[in-house]
């Protein structure tokens, strides 16, 4: 499944569509501590988190994360939204808790 297909499934609300959405999703990653995410988030993965600040975007960009999903109704603050636009990072959001959001993606990946 590609990032584009995930976005177009409309399971999640779209905040920003980045570039390179034709990438195949490599897997799922859940973590809110940025230093751990930094060292472990796989490239091209979907990263589910409740951290919606500018540093989340910086980590996603450096790790080549395919897409961020913000869970628990979290959204991006203004600075982070600007960074998402500038760095062309795909960001989605949902009211679901982290586990349920990740499970939704997992089920799509393994459908």
């Amino acid at each position, binding site marked *: 499944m590609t990032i584009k297909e995930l976005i177009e499934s409309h399971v999640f609300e779209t905040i920003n569509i980045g570039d390179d959405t034709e990438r195949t999703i490599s897997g799922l990653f859940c973590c809110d501590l940025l230093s751990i995410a930094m060292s472990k988030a796989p*490239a091209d993965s979907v990263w589910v988190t409740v951290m919606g600040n500018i540093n989340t975007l910086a*980590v996603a960009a450096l790790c080549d994360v395919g897409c961020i999903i913000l869970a628990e109704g979290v959204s991006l603050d203004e600075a982070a939204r600007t960074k998402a636009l500038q760095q062309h990072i795909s960001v989605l959001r949902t009211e679901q808790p982290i586990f349920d959001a990740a499970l939704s993606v997992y089920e799509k990946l393994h459908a």
Partner: protein
Amino acid sequence: MEDTIKLEYIVSAEDFTRAGEASSDLKNILKQMGVSPDTVRKVSIAMYEGEINMVIHANGGVITVFVTPKEVTMILKDSGPGIPDIDKAMQAGYSTAPDNIRSLGFGAGMGLPNMKKYSDDMKIETELGVGTTVTMTVRIC
């Protein structure tokens, strides 16, 4: 050396809106140079952790980067408070980051351990009240 590229970045104190810009710029330059994704990732992680440390703990500083065909060397120099106990600071999970930093998702005590893990060589020179210089080298393979 003729094949050496030198880059310099000013890291501002307590400016989280710009933290990561130096690492991001270096990452893009290395990618354009055709450096392997694994190496770019190692450099990015080590550099970003160092950059964040300078923002959080050291009132910012200067990062000088040398790129040769064989390695990337990052020299992170600050005029912060210095590190009282390097062994303790190197322990995974040990952190002196204040609560406002933790609420941003940092302060897991992984900064220096990540820097060591992702660089092939790391040297810390620190003096209390004077500052800290961290030199990290990542070999290009």
